[in-house]
């Protein structure tokens, strides 16, 4: 256990370093884009005087390193700064959006992970049968389509033709829990279709891989049923790679769903980030990117910890 705690501490420290590097790269990246906030927000109506007034007020006339280190100093005090555009605290601006993103990711995960693992186990169990081939074809087809296409197909049938679910996920904080779930069902189903193949295929492959090992052969010779072999003997040993794939997909659900957000008009973090990059609203861009980076770092860490807990041999590398 001590080893695991040590690893967690080490990884968290490295994670902070990664976040620092990410923030610097993002800052320089946005800095390299043509135009600054003052020009973008004024758009066609920018005149030299109004642009200058904006820059004076926001300190955009200072060199980039001064602004970067000012911002970094604020972070160490827990102050993410204020949005250039709306003058609102970044934390307040992002809070609701982040909750929405996490909610959608959670609903999609609750639907997709059990289905993917169950289908994977079943596919391994009935390997090379018609059942196995059917779900392989189905999941591979759905992952091969771009996500907006899957979304439009779902909208066409479930919303426009049969009118079961709303075509846009118009959610607000005063909705009840189930109403909220109802309104995000279509985006959650879209995401499910997009990620299910990856997890299901990995489950199937790692179980089939193990089925060839001597201890499974032994179990078979003892006359244990195939389903018991798969669920009790093969699956626990196959968990490490499965967990890794699931976690990567969870990270995708948080950071990679901007297209689905746009199609369903879902007010998540992705849309906020795109808006903010377009307007060069640096504090919001930085905070969103840090959240995304932190999501990856934490989820990867979770995956490693879980893998090691399920397979203690990994704690003792040769």
């Amino acid at each position, binding site marked *: 256990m001590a080893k695991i705690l040590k690893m967690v501490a080490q990884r968290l420290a490295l994670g902070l370093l990664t976040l620092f590097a990410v923030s610097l790269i993002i800052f320089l990246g946005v800095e390299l*884009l043509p135009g600054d906030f003052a020009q973008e927000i004024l*758009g*066609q109506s920018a*005149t030299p005087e*109004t642009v200058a007034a904006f820059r004076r007020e926001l300190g955009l006339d200072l060199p980039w390193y001064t602004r970067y280190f000012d911002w970094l100093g604020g972070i160490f005090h827990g102050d993410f700064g204020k949005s250039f555009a709306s003058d609102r605290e970044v934390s307040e601006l992002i809070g609701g959006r982040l909750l929405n993103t996490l909610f959608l990711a959670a609903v999609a995960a609750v639907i997709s992970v059990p289905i993917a693992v169950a289908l994977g186990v079943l596919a391994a169990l009935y390997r090379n049968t018609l059942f196995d081939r059917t779900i392989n074809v189905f999941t591979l087809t759905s992952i091969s389509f771009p996500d907006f296409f899957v979304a439009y197909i779902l909208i066409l049938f479930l919303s426009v033709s049969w009118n079961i679910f709303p075509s*846009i996920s118009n959610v607000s904080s005063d909705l009840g829990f189930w109403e909220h779930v109802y309104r995000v069902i279509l985006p959650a189903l879209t995401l499910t279709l997009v990620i299910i193949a990856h997890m299901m295929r990995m489950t199937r492959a790692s179980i089939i891989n193990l089925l060839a090992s001597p201890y499974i052969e032994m179990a078979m010779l003892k006359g244990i049923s195939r389903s018991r072999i798969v669920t009790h003997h093969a699956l626990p040993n196959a968990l490490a790679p499965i967990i890794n794939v699931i976690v990567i997909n969870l990270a995708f659900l948080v950071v990679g769903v901007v297209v689905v957000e746009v199609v369903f*008009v879902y007010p998540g973090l992705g849309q906020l980030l795109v808006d903010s990059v377009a307007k060069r609203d640096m504090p919001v861009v930085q905070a969103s990117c840090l959240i995304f980076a932190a999501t990856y770092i934490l989820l990867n860490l979770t995956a490693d910890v879980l893998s090691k807990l399920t397979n203690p041999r990994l704690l003792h590398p040769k």
Partner: protein
Amino acid sequence: MREIERYRGLLAAGRMTRRDFVQRAMALGATTALATSMAGGALAATPKKGGTLRLGIGHGSTSDTLDMAATTDLYMQVVGNAGYNYLTEVSNAGKLTPELAESWDVSPDAKVWTFKLRKGVEFHNGKTMDSGDVIASINHHLGEDSKSAAKAILDPIAEVKADGKDTVVFTMKTGNADFPFILSDYHVAIMPAKDGKLIDPRSGIGTGGYTIENFEPGVRTTLKRNPNYWKADRAHVDSAEVLVIQDTTARTNALTTGEIDAMDKVDLKTAHLLGRSKKVRLEEVSGTQHFTFAMRTDTAPFTDNHVRLALKYAIDREALVKTILLGHGVIGNDHPIGRSNQYHADDLPQRAYDPDKAKFHLKEAGLSTLKVDLSAADAAFAGAVDAAVLYKEHAAKAGININVVREPNDGYWSNVWLKKPFCAVYWGGRPTEDWMFSTAYADGVPWNDTYWKHDRFNKILVEARGELDGSKRRGMYHEMQKIVSDEGGVVVPMFANYVMGLSNKVAHDKLGANWAMDGFRAIERWWFA
């Protein structure tokens, strides 16, 4: 036309569907726009109270604020026109009408404007509106530190002062006959002030028909009817919800599945499919919105007017309206004044596509061929790149080689517009001739995107601004349109209609053509039938 009147009667009595009406009216020779607007007029008879109007708008962003000085797109324009009032309003018929100002007077030199304010109008916070609020609301856009997009149009004001609680006197730097129009501009909302300063320009507190209940930038705004609203015949719906729906397909789906009651910016390519639905209808108005190709007249080869004329003759306007706007628009005549404007020069000959004349003008310029770069991006207007490519094909017949440069959408207005010698531009248009010309054609103004300088034009522009006699102004503006068309640096191939999609449950009077969504006033003007 008597037949049409009979149909209108049937429609108003509910004995004929709107679809039938439009079809029959068109069979009798009315244009689509005319037929739909007549249908709207006939149905307009009795506004009903109640309901929640949900609008899906294809603009809006997380960076929006309730400060109208920073407003640039339709989303905040629609929200702002529900929450705030202005001193004047452009009516749905295109006429200037009083709003918070009750009446106004002008000195004979058009320099001193005296506005009498409406008495007893209350802000949402209970404060009674007076001259102090108006002055602070105007000053919000002026001064060195102003970041207001309206700074330039209010610049002609030399001084604004109160004459008692209910009168405001504006003194202009030079005579300005159209000044009351400028006060209807969406930026110049009247907000409450304290000690000569606005209390908070981002508070959303105005005198408008709706109070802003919840404002989530880039997502939605919910509004509730202001029970104390001073206008008796407006603000019919109880509440409104304005959603940001950038994706055209999502917006269209939301309308057809009944998630929203109306949307702006219908995708022209699928407009005919939407029009087939029984639950929704298309509405379009032809106003001042126009698309241009701007040539920098300070840069070779565009310094030579013959080159500019050659390029003006080398574009097939009809083809562009047909292909890019799919018929939802009208051809332009190389000047920015729309047919709905008061002083539009109807008798100015329409410039046609004529490769031979283009060749002639090239020859006059001493050239046998011409090669120019044309910068375009869809940020300029939807279909700008396609339009540029079509232009290239048209111009090739006149021996002009246009090289279409596809620019990035991102940063188009800061890096391409006003910088590149020849580029595609979008203009929402302005309600008056003077406003349009002084925004983009007068010498030295920041948005003169053709860097055009014409002494005669600039002289009449100032004279016309100070002229109060309508018929004299007509002559002056006529001449100015001719000058821009013949000598200006701009190709104006088309005026685009505002095309909106509405649920059949929504009713309205004649739609204002000055801006999209009924002159931004959909929320306070529309109702549920």
